[in-house]
């Protein structure tokens, strides 16, 4: 029973740690499926987290925070789009630039506005996305196993968590059951086919990066308004890159993206849990190793050991008509 309870706890923190990854990875999915590689997920998430923290601190409303985060992330996504779609620039360079801009400007603006060393002020409960108690969570708490799972694991997360999980089937539906999704997938594979079919490649890709912006804004908001009570400098701490790794690991497919994010989240939760305690047979595992595992797994995957990850064929290539 004790083991079961700690398992529930690890899984519970797995969910908490996976959500920013899931939102960011789904964000990346829209952009990359349209052929625009986005290494700037990290930066957009960070800027979103800051905007959410700042707006919530000023207005006292979590929803205002979410709105501000989406706004600023969409803005940065449009910058990336302007550079890589309209001006056909190098998508990696543009993405890296956004990461740097976000890392620097959030600290500078944070210090200038709030004078707390780059943080935003600590937020009271109603300016955050707090835990949502699902109906009967309290009532079934004492039911063995199922009660534990329902009240600990399933209930008690923020609205953004539930939204993130709902976004997985929604994204699948958009991608594979709508006109927009068909065109989005097509433009990432062969933009010339879309162009000659009489559909604007640029407008399609812009809409894709806007989706990316909205979702990275949500990811950032989750960090500063749900997981924490305010913005702390560099609070994304590489999650944007892990999300990117998860996206590749899941071969750019929505449902596998969720499982990849849960896996990486679990590794993180597990690492925290076993910190300092030696494992049987293996002994003490350095935290750094656990933190590096998502990347190691992704590299192993890319090396072709676990199937093959084929990126969208037109990914990373600006669309230019012949000549």
């Amino acid at each position, binding site marked *: 029973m004790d083991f079961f309870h700690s398992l529930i706890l690890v899984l519970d923190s797995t969910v908490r740690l996976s959500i920013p990854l899931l939102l960011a990875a789904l964000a990346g999915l829209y952009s990359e499926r349209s052929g625009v590689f986005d290494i700037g997920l990290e930066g957009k998430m960070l800027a979103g987290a800051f905007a959410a923290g700042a707006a919530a601190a000023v207005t006292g409303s979590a929803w205002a925070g979410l709105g501000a985060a989406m706004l600023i992330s969409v803005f940065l996504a449009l910058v990336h789009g302007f550079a890589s779609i309209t001006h056909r620039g190098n998508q990696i360079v543009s993405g890296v630039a956004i990461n740097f801009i976000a890392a620097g400007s959030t600290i500078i603006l944070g210090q200038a506005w709030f004078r707390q060393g780059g943080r935003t002020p600590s937020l009271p409960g109603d300016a955050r996305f707090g835990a949502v108690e699902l109906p009967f969570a309290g009532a079934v708490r004492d039911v063995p196993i199922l009660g534990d799972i329902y009240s600990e694991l399933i209930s008690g997360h923020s609205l953004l968590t539930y939204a993130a999980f709902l976004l997985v089937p929604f994204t699948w539906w958009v991608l*594979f*059951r*709508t*006109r*927009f*999704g*068909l*065109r989005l*997938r*097509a433009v990432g*594979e*062969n933009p*010339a*086919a*879309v*162009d*000659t*079919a*009489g*559909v*604007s490649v640029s407008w399609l890709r812009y809409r894709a990066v806007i989706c990316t912006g909205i979702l990275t804004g949500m990811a950032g908001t989750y960090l500063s308004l749900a997981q924490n009570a305010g913005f702390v400098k560099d609070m994304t701490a590489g999650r944007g890159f892990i999300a990117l790794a998860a996206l590749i690991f899941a071969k750019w497919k929505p449902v596998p993206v969720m499982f990849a994010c849960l896996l990486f989240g679990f590794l993180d939760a597990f690492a925290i849990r076993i910190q300092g305690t030696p494992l049987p047979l293996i002994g003490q595992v350095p935290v750094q190793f656990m933190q590096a595992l998502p990347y190691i797994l992704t590299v192993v995957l890319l090396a072709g050991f676990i199937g093959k990850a084929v990126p969208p*064929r037109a990914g990373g290539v600006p669309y230019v*008509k012949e*000549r």
Partner: protein
Amino acid sequence: MAETAIELKGISKSFGAVHANRNIDLKIEAGTIHGVIGENGAGKSTLMSILYGFYQADRGRIHVGGKKAAINTPSDAIALGIGMVHQHFMLVQNFSVLENVILGAEGEALLNTSIARARSELERLERDYGLEVDPDSIIEDLPVGLQQRVEILKALYRGADILILDEPTGVLTPAEADHLFRILEQLKEEGKTIILITHKLREIMAITDNVSVMRQGTMVATRRTAETSVEELAELMVGRRVLLQVEKGEAKPGEVLLSVRNLTVKDSRGVTMVDNVSLDVRAGEIVGIAGVAGNGQSQLLDAITGVRRAVSGTVTLGGEPVDLTGAADPADLRARGMAHVPEDRHHVGLVLPFEENENAMLGYHRQAKYLNGPFLNIEAIRADAREKIEKYDIRPPDCRLKTANFSGGNQQKIVLAREMEQDPKVLIVGQPTRGVDVGAIEFIHKRLIDMRDQGKAVLLVSVELDEIRSLSDRILVMFAGRVVGERGPEASEGELGLLMAGVEEKEAAE
């Protein structure tokens, strides 16, 4: 006089300093097959891309069905009933046939109803025009002939009355090409207007009603096909008389210089691309390998020239064995007298951003004549390049010009000059005239015959059956990685075509 489907008036288009189209007038009669012919770079594709709204003309007007039309995007053209089958198919490789057909013409925002509608519409089109293709198969699993059919279906699904086909037979076997022509005939009978862009004179004569000839961005003539001849069209295309038939004497084959035994090559996925191929090339003969693109010819060339590792088999060059298992070093093979004109001059044969003189000796840059101690002897290299430019009539005659700025034919001459001037024993040539204009083809063919007459062993791979037939002294046909037959140069096109399509030797002989 039939009514006019399309009329172009004074169309001009420049890309930077290049005038792709100058003041072009063209009238297409409704319900006819109209050929547009010209050398590569004559501006045919540009003109059609303007008609399809892919490019915008700098000047000029387009009339469709007698009314002035503003075609700014492909969707404008589609709305006017114009459809286009591009030379490089505009298909999404990992989509199904259905998805490709509806892309851009889905109708409402959700897919299920549009898919269902497309399925029944496709069935009707297949029935009406004999365009069978499984709507659920994935494009990349389909042979090119069927992929092209999907392109035609795409256009018809959008209600095209005017169909533009850009070099449609380049990727087809003769049999597939014949089938395509039957489909086009049938479309014509249904009242569709077809514009066929090609550089193959034979196709023009076989199927078109009218033909327009373009040269260097201008429209030089329009003729009734019945009232013109291959010779006249060739002359109009090039601007001077052209020898269409290569003149060559008897071959005098000598000793075997290149011998390949039981060569097997696999690709990176482990699929067998070359299957137990054996062949000999003697001094003073040209051995041609015919086949539809993708039947292992490329991999065979790569293995022989040391670019790709073979799984098994032996190659002897001038009697000396070549080590294939350790991936024979192309430089070593060059030093031993094997010259190689690669199939793909842009990616393998040349470094396009380099100056002409650098490409003219690349690969042979370790030879003493190009060196000055540890450094390159720039003066010697340029002098050498100027000599080759003169001898091979490379234009413009500027050895400092960036290679990318030469036309396809002249780029190919740069590669040929580099390889042929090394005085090799064995010359391996892949697709020597792909994307090369008629004038340059004539020159290249002559040079290849010269090499043969000088006693070189020439192995020629080409997807152009005409080229194989007119140059080769012996013809090997490859299908699915195997050599499925050997014929003399007198073999008929139909006979070779059957072999290329994989019809068994016995059946083909009947």
